[in-house]
């Protein structure tokens, strides 16, 4: 029995009929075709599927699409307009915060959430904030540096009113 949902993703509202058991991550990837959000573990441990739902970072692999009815979601594709980069994305590029890139979209969403809650985090606070996201390639240090870069950049932007 399919259920109607209305979900806003990256500013566009989508109305679809979905099976109640359809996972949100599969709705995003297979129904909407936004494949930047990845599946890494199916158990909410690795965080590759992290998206922002109504301002909160959420693991979309353990949430049903019907639970997201009426919400406003940002995925990696919606972090910046066109070819512009969000300061967190820029930080990952500047500081080599990724190797294979698979965990990266989820990491970036989690990092954005950290800075949203705390614009000036310490190294320990960044590491703690990233505990829900696993990276098997980088060893995390460059990711921490990427988040620090983004924090500086966002502070500068706020100061100059950009």
């Amino acid at each position, binding site marked *: 029995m399919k259920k109607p949902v209305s979900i806003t993703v990256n500013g566009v509202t989508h109305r679809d009929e979905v099976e109640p058991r359809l996972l949100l991550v599969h709705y995003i990837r297979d129904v909407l075709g936004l*494949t930047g959000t990845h599946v890494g573990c199916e*158990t909410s441990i690795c965080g590759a599927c992290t998206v922002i739902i109504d301002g909160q970072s959420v693991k979309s692999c353990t949430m049903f699409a019907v639970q997201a009815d009426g919400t406003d979601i940002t995925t990696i594709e919606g972090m910046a307009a066109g070819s512009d980069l969000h300061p967190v*994305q820029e930080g990952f590029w500047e500081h080599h915060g990724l190797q294979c*890139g698979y965990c990266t979209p989820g990491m970036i969403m989690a990092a954005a959430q950290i800075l949203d809650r705390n614009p000036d985090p310490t190294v320990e606070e960044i590491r703690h904030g*990233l*505990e829900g996201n696993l990276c098997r390639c980088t*060893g*995390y*240090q460059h990711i*921490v540096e990427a988040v620090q870069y983004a924090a500086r950049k966002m502070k500068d932007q706020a100061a100059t009113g950009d």
Partner: protein
Amino acid sequence: MAKYVGQRVKRTEDPRLIQGLGHYVDDVKLPDTLHVAFLRSMYAHARIKSIDTSEASHAPGVVAVYTGKDVAAKIGAVPCASALPGLKVPDYRVLATDHVVFVGHPIAVVVAADRYSARDAIDLIMVDYEELPAVVDVEHAAKGGPAIYEEFGDNIAYKLTSGEGDIDSALKSADRVIKQRMVHQRLAPIAMETRGVLARYFPGEQELTIWSSTQIPHLLRTQLALMIGIPENKLRVITPEVGGAFGSKLNVYAEEALLGWISMQLGKPVKWIEGRRENIQATIHGRGQVGYVEVGCKNDGTIAGIRYNVFADLGAYHQLLTPAIPTLTGLMLSGAYKIPAIQINITGVFTNKMATDAYRGAGRPEATYVVERAVDLVAAELGLDTVDVRRKNFPASNEFPFKTATGLFYDSGDYDAALDKALEISDYKKLRDEQKKARNDGRLIGIGVSTYVEICALGPSAAMPAGGWESATVRIEPTGKVTILTGASPHGQGQETSFAQIAADELGVDINDVTVVHGDTAVVQYGIGTFGSRATAVGGTAVLMAIEKLKEKATKIAAHMLKAESSNVVFNEGKFSKHAARAASASAVPEPTIPAGQAPAGALPDPEPEGKTVSIQDVALAAHIARDIPPGSEPGLSATYFFEPTNFTFPFGTHIAVVEIDRETGEIKFLRYVAVDDCGKVINPMMVDGQVQGGIVQSIGQALYEEVVYDEQGQLVTGTLMDYALPKAAMIPWFELDRTETPSPVNPLGVKGVGEAGTIGATPAIVNAIVDALSPFGVRHLDMPVRPEAVWKILSAHS
């Protein structure tokens, strides 16, 4: 002139990856794709009495169901590439027929309209099992446990002895002989992207395309062509973005062949994306050795010999390189030391578990761990500082190429230099003083040192199962853009950037004008792939050599354009000109100017003025238009080179870990981590740091957290990431990294490789630190993963 090589160049791969625009296998969407799910054995060891698929076949959305009987005569066995003398090779079919030998062993496959329906139908397949006793413990399996394969009589897949020198008399005449049992627990590689396959058959063209998350597209194509029975030139393997591999995708898997075959049966695209539980069940594991080391030494700390008797837990079947991995352990048992007598006695053992194979380091971390722990055992036995024992046994920097008693020639090295630098950065003397003080205050601080050497750039073909060379084609298009086709198959290492750095410097072009193409067998000439820290040292050298070849041709065309002899033409920063000496002598002659657009076509001035240059882009255009190239020369501007290395390379370094142990809980906390690595010449220091850091964290995983656990019945206990403990960001110290740079003489780039250094060098440093911290309690050794529980038991026994 190196504008890019050696610089911290940002990766060209990254813009697509940080925007979520990369395409991993599951991101490739084809219309009408069917989805595949596997029924896998729930028992470690059982007979299959019957399989009933009738209900599953009629389930909603199901298109087809196949069992082992359907495919046994159609699809060849899963291949093993290592040919050791006397090796027992079980017949490893893509689906089991009547005998399952590990939890996760594929039994049947459902093809359905979507992944949910496929998964549903799996539960409707009825299998009648007769459970058999499982052999789980490797030593029990070797010493009389029930034989998994009745036809073999026992579980010994092979026995192999190697090494040089008279180990018996070395140990007999040593002042001391120290013995220790060491366990290298099974690890799961856990690439963040699981395996995945998409197969599409084109019935008209009779061509099959397979997208697979693999490290070896060409080798995979060859093997799958043989398994499925399709001509190799009708099979195209595409490796899209690969989300990590660490050796786990250096293989040929049953699922890859099955998906290809199913697509041929159904004439539709079929896709399978491995779940994480499947990934831990049925993607290869790493390590899995239980060994007994005997090290003989003199009273001054000189090591006289090492013997290592090891039981290698191969699992139930051989995957591509399963039996070969422990032989790499044997190769590296000399470590960074002059050891006159070395012997390894390998017993390769079948157990009812997933096969072990290459996981980052692949046999070498085991060797390094054995040697580096053995050195600490010697130091502890003799009451010497571990640093002094290490130094005493180093070959000097002028002793290279250094021959080991394992039959290798280490290419170059300066082990003292890396050690000195690490001691300086860590302020080792001060650390020891602080440790002493802390002990007096009741705190448990440990300092662990590892002075590792590793074997990289795999490898000369003579030493490899299927070719150790690598290929590159370099092409300059008519518009001057540079295309590199590499046989390497990067999956996170960043060779799209590092190879572009090499090419941009050598050709004098902007790095943004260079595109590196890999992972498509229809586009790229045959290649070997990315593993064994080989891509830059072997594949990068192939790029360099192809460029040299291309420049030879370009020089001839440029000479023709400049109306000069080739021998008088020089190439510098992207431009060809007449030889500097001649140009200089002609500089007094005023240069005739030809106003742009006024030279009549076909009537170029003759002779060309001295000092005139043509760019490599001009040459590329001329080579393609081909109206005015040297007579008899080939049009176009591309060159292909297959580079065969003459030796492996041997990176090395010193890692120092400082840990503190909580007396109440046994918890282990890092205070410092210093690593000085020498991977030869560095192409991109930022990427080298990334490789080292990632490697160290995988070592931290092995030393402290990770272990694939099977229970006594062979059930996989650690089947999800909730149970298999990967290191997280907050568990990791800040790494203090530095380098020494000893070029390799094996390749003209002077590079050695760095992909596995961290995984090889760090594990023993961490365990040495923990043992050092606990040494006041008489602790000489602890097995990995060193969990707080084990430490706490020691502490409470002494409190």
